[in-house]
């Protein structure tokens, strides 16, 4: 019995990863045969980043049962720290894959550290505080990134919160983070293949976590905190664990995203509240707690508005309606009862016929 269950999990996970791999093969063939437009090709790496973000947010929302509205903030941290690193070491480490791997480590570890620091005070509390604090955090990070100036010259690093002139650099100095203009000229170390590899890695981490002893402990906290506590599960530890991993994965998405851009800026559009909401819509539409659903929803909702250009003005409005309707449909007790009645009626009709 036990073995059978494990193999079913394995089978499920293999299907999810298989979908990603098949998607990758199809896209590669299409792009080699020149069917994909330039626009769609440019969308491939951001799409990978969105998928990773959606999976990582689903870990927080679906598995841990807390709401994070600052996932774009963790992505921003990962993006900026890693782009900063890559730009500084561009002349020193010339092997691009090695540089990217180091950048990946730095981006994800910084995001994890910040997730840990934020989670520590907040996850001990009950209620909706995590949502509001992560929302606040996302805004803080965006604000700070817009006023941060860092430059490098022969004397070392210079740091300012005012403007690039007050960095007081030697003439040979180079401004690395230029306030609202962000980081320009990050080496383009990421591509679609790396993106897909990172998606598969993310899926392996998250799916393995869910099916492990730790993952079951995390889900038991979601389902009943008091019962979980009474059987000896360390609530704060497991909450922090899930949240930190989720933040680290959002950082990975940021690294991927930033190494595909020539100029990285912290605008409300890419790292603000809107982005966090968009990722939340992916998770809700794909099914809260359903990792495969997140992947599919991210793909559909990223490609659909690009294919239906005319809808662009109404895109956010449609997202908000999707959010409300999906929540009511899936979670309202009356709706659940209604759906059960309907299902019963239809199955009865079939028996009669």
């Amino acid at each position: 019995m036990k073995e059978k269950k494990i193999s079913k999990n394995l089978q499920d996970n293999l299907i999810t990863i298989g979908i990603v791999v098949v998607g990758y093969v199809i896209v590669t063939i299409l792009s080699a045969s020149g069917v994909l437009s330039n626009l769609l090709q440019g969308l491939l790496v951001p799409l990978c980043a969105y998928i990773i973000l959606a999976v990582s947010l689903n870990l927080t929302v679906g598995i841990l049962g807390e709401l994070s509205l600052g996932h774009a903030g963790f992505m921003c941290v990962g993006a900026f720290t890693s782009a900063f690193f890559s730009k500084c070491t561009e002349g020193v480490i010339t092997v691009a894959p090695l540089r990217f791997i180091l950048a990946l480590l730095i981006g994800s570890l910084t995001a994890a550290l910040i997730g840990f620091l934020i989670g520590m005070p907040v996850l001990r509390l009950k209620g909706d505080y995590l949502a509001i604090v992560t929302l606040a955090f996302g805004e803080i990070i965006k604000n700070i990134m817009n006023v941060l100036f860092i430059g490098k010259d022969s004397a070392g690093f210079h740091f300012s919160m005012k403007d690039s002139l007050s960095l007081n650099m030697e003439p040979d100095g180079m401004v690395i983070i230029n306030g609202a203009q962000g980081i320009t000229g990050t080496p383009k170390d990421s591509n679609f293949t790396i993106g897909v590899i990172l998606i598969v890695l993310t899926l392996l981490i998250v799916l393995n976590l869910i099916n492990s002893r730790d993952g079951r402990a995390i889900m038991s906290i979601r389902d009943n905190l008091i019962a979980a506590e009474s059987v000896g599960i360390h609530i704060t530890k497991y909450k922090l664990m899930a949240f930190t991993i989720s933040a680290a994965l959002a950082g990975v998405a940021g690294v991927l995203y930033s190494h595909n851009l020539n100029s990285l800026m912290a605008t409300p559009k890419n790292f603000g509240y809107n982005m966090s909401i968009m990722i939340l819509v992916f998770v809700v539409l794909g099914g809260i707690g359903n990792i495969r659903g997140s992947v599919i929803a991210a793909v559909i909702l990223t490609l659909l508005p690009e294919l239906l250009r005319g809808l662009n003005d109404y895109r956010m409005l449609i997202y908000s309606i999707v959010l409300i309707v999906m929540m009511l449909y899936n979670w309202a007790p009356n709706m659940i009862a209604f759906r059960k009645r309907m299902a019963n009626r239809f199955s009865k009709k079939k028996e009669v016929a």
Partner: protein
Amino acid sequence: MSLLSYLINGISLGSVYAIIALGYTMVYGIAKMLNFAHGDVIMVGGYLIFTFVSTLQLPVGLGIVLAVVLCTMLGITIEAIAYRPLRNAASSLAVLITAIGVSYFLQNVALIIFGANTKAFTSVVNAEPIKLFGDQITISGETIVTIISCIIIMTVLTLFVNRTKAGQAMLAVSEDKGAAQLMGINVNGTISLTFAIGSGLAAIAGLLLCSAYPSLTPYTGSMPGIKAFVAAVFGGIGSIPGAFIGGIILGIIEILGKAYISSQLADAIVFLVLILVLLIKPTGILGKKVQEKV
């Protein structure tokens, strides 16, 4: 002298936060949910008054009354359509995500109707500024009206909750929904009433906010809304005097932070306050600690 005028500006901004926070804290106390859309009702209130007074040229008083009534109805509608069906949902996340959806919906409807351009809001407050210390400090009419309205609203609301039957029903529902229902209290009606009051207050807050800071966009409400939530948490969520104190302190912190530290980081400072409060005293200044029973 400049410190004094910063303090007065802070109290003025804080009074707006306090009015918004009152709505937040009442709804949180009774429905145990974070109404993310509250801030956007402020924005709707602002646009309604703008439409009535600037576009349709209605008398100011009539415009305000109409805006408050419409916002009240909006609040009741949102509660009935989006929140009530989810009140007994298995996960408390459900209603939170729906609230975010509603907030987003209101912003985007406003965006489509009014466009993304900033609308110049003409102040509807018609009061003479006061000059103190031989013209060294000027207190604008908006500031005076804001502070006075906040004190009046606070007093009326406290009296309403403590002295009237409907107010007592609110307290009972916030304490224990099931028991209140057994005592013959109409729980759904009471929650609707709370949303109605909160949304009406949001309309007034929108009016005061846009009079003091005369620019109106679809996102006008979201930041003050979130900050007012910070104020409500600061003062102790669920407590009416707490929302007032939290709002005033937060307003002062924001204005002083803007003046002495950095204007771009003022928001960050406010949110830092939230994280510090949650770290040191999560129940806020006047909040009660409630032990959860199994």
